[in-house]
């Protein structure tokens, strides 16, 4: 175990130097270095906000099931099926039909099925049929239909969230999907996430609808921004989808903050037509079910440019413009978890983390030196090498260092010497019976090998499980602990062993003391 071929020695040091050299990247300015790799600081160290958002697809399901009504009725009429008791429920449509068998055939038709398309990805239909008795039927989304709705809503939401956050101008945001209902947002450096939360908390569904004079069927009673009670026609003239741009500005007459908008070609045509036909009437601009403004149409607006002069501050106008630009969220989002660390706490954490790392390191080094003298020096050299390699690998992986992550490094320092302790203690035992010192070292290393491996694999298993199940800062701990074990094995079994062999082979037998 003490004999190394030249190629082995060469390989050990090349690997060591190569990996360790990456750790230097963290201590130089990044602008002039060739390789731009660095250990990232977690939000708990650099300060910032972590938000976990959850979509609620229930309103969307309701909307989608309602949108099936017309297609369904058309299908029934076209095929001369008579139906009754038609009801639109929260998540399903229920009705009675005279010929269930015929309806079933139509419902589950593989081709040209407008009502219930077949989703090839999942080998399933979009809708499910629930036959209650010989004539009553319930139509609802199938499991995969719901999944499709949910997934597309989630994808779309992530896109909109990204646009809104980018628009606010936070630096280096991270926006990721988490599970099938959640979006993770990390905003480094952000001190107060309230504005972002407010922006993400609005679905921002914009509608243009006419104000109706009479209280006939098909109107909603809404209160305007000035407190006026208005009857709003249910017919949506134009929605936010037709918007291409929106900017905050000022109303020329009142000099109050306002929001301008620009419509796409289709939107501009529609808007022009409606404004031409309805001069003198009032147009309500509705955001998320609330009137933000209900001006009178003074003249036809064919250009597709308009201005919303509501009752808002400049900040509100800016936010509204941002929301309109970024588009509507398909479903409402709620913040289910939030963690914000101020920059000064992060700084304090770095300071105390580094301080305890240095103190822990020095204590362990002194103890090993006291306990094993020259071999303590070898173990300590291996320990320093271990630390350099650990930071090097973290740099190569561009891993995120958190406060528990620093704790993981300190713990690695404490536990890393174990491998060398195991080996040295074994050698001590062998020295009692073995006459040749070189032989004793040799046997000591080979016998301790299995134990060292067994002992470290158990900790590695714990680290891997923690990495899989842990979240945020705790994941950072699992990373440093896990990588620490691998670098420990390398440094103890190659670096320290080679150094030991140099000492043992170059000193006379009597001088060796362990």
């Amino acid at each position, binding site marked *: 175990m003490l004999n190394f071929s030249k190629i082995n020695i060469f390989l050990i040091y090349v690997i060591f130097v190569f990996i360790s050299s990456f750790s230097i990247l963290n201590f130089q300015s990044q602008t002039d270095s060739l390789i731009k790799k660095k250990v990232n600081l977690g939000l*708990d160290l650099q300060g910032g906000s972590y938000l*976990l958002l*959850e979509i609620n697809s229930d309103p969307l399901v309701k909307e989608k099931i309602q949108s099936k009504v017309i297609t369904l009725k058309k299908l029934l009429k076209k095929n001369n099926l008579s139906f009754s008791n038609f009801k639109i429920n929260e998540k399903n449509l229920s009705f009675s039909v005279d010929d269930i068998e015929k309806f079933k055939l139509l419902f589950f038709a593989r081709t040209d099925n407008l009502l219930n398309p077949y989703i090839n990805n999942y080998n399933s239909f979009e809708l499910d049929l629930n036959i209650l008795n010989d004539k009553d039927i319930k139509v609802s989304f199938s499991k995969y239909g719901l999944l499709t709705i949910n997934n597309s809503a989630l994808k779309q939401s992530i896109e909109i969230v990204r646009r809104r956050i980018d628009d606010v101008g936070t630096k280096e945001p991270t926006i990721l999907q988490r599970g099938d209902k959640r979006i993770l947002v990390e905003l480094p450096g952000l001190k107060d996430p*309230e504005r972002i939360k407010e922006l993400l*908390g609005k679905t921002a569904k914009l509608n243009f609808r006419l104000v109706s004079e009479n209280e006939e069927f098909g109107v909603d009673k809404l209160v305007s921004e000035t407190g006026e009670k208005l009857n709003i026609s249910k017919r949506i003239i134009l929605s936010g989808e037709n918007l291409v741009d929106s900017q905050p500005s000022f109303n020329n007459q009142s000099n109050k903050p306002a929001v301008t908008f620009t419509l796409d070609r289709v939107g501009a045509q529609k808007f022009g037509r409606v404004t031409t036909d309805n001069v003198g009437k009032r147009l309500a601009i509705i955001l998320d079910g609330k009137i933000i403004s209900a001006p009178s149409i003074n003249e036809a607006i064919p250009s597709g440019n308009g201005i919303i002069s509501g009752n808002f501050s400049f900040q509100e106008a800016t936010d509204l413009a941002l929301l309109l630009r970024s588009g509507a969220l398909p479903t409402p989002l*709620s*913040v*289910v*978890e*939030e*963690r*914000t*660390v*101020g920059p*000064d*706490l992060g700084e304090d*954490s770095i300071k*105390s*983390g580094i301080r*305890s790392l240095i*103190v*822990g390191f020095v*204590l*362990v080094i002194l*103890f090993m030196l006291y*306990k094993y003298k020259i071999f303590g020096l070898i173990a300590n050299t291996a320990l320093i090498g271990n630390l350099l390699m650990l930071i090097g690998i973290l740099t190569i992986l561009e891993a995120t260092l958190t*406060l*528990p992550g*620093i*704790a993981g490094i*300190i*713990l690695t*320092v*404490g*536990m890393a*010497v*174990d491998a060398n*302790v*195991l080996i040295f*203690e074994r050698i*001590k*035992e062998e020295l009692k019976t073995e006459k040749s010192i070189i032989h004793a070292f040799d046997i000591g290393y080979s016998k301790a090998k299995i*134990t060292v491996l*067994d*002992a470290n694999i*158990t*900790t590695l*298993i*714990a*680290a891997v*499980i*923690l990495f899989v*199940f*842990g979240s*945020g*800062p*705790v994941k950072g*701990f*699992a990373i440093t*602990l896990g990588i620490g074990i691998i670098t420990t094995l390398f440094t103890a079994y190659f670096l320290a062993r080679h150094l030991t062999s140099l000492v043992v082979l170059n000193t006379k037998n009597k001088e060796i003391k362990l």
Partner: protein
Amino acid sequence: MNNKFNFSSKFRFANIFSLIVFSTSFLLILFKGLNYGIDFKGGTLIELRSYNTDATSIRSILSKMDLGDVNVKKFGKEGDYLIKVEQKEKNDNQIIPQIKKTLSDNLNTEVNFRRVENVGPKVSSELLKSGIIAISLSLAAMLFYIWIRFEWQFSVGSIIALFHDIVITLGIFSVLSLEINLSIIAAVLTIVGYSMNDTVVIYDRIRENLNKYNKLNISEIANLSINDTLARTIITSITTLLALLSIFILGGEILRGFSFAMILGVVIGTYSSIFVASPILKFLKVSYKTLEKKEEKIVP
């Protein structure tokens, strides 16, 4: 042979001692319960720094807000306070800005909000569930690993020792009403790794000695093996504890619970490798024959 200490003569006493502490801890966890932090219970946590005020005035300001159960205490350094607000039934996104505003307006001194956390009821129950799954899974993985590397008796012994360590660590947390949060789960998993590491070193030696001295009974073998590895056990515990004490004292308030749990775990884990994991092998009637049978199976 190195038989400085006669450990096996202390096994009976140690086992009774362990059993009492274990059962007490178990009952404490069951009846007194654990002090779950917002990670697992849901709610809002605010850490603030403000000089010229005290916990009482913060408490009295917040008591006017109708927040439900509010807990205010000093946190580490002078001027640092930790506020915990119990989860209300509904997830209220307005609660944090409201609290912040009320405190800024009424404290008549500068307030620096250093940390704000809010965990909803759904997320907190999921975090608790995944924490329990992680710990159970780690135990199962250890059981399996030891079972592959050793005989089943060793695997049973090591798992009992791990249970012993986890339950007693949590029992001490229960007695002292210390908070259980995500970092404590990390600590428990690390304790599992560490304690297992310690046990494996002794087991490895027991297996080796069983093959070497087939005249000795398991108590003698265990005693011999513990003594053989004792220096290593002590030295590694010392270096690990040095590192942990450094985190505990200098690592700041956030890491305090974590490092405390780890310190407990290292001490209990070291104890259990010697006084729990080893004597169990005697109960399971391990002898050199146990090993032989396995070898016969492997070689066809």
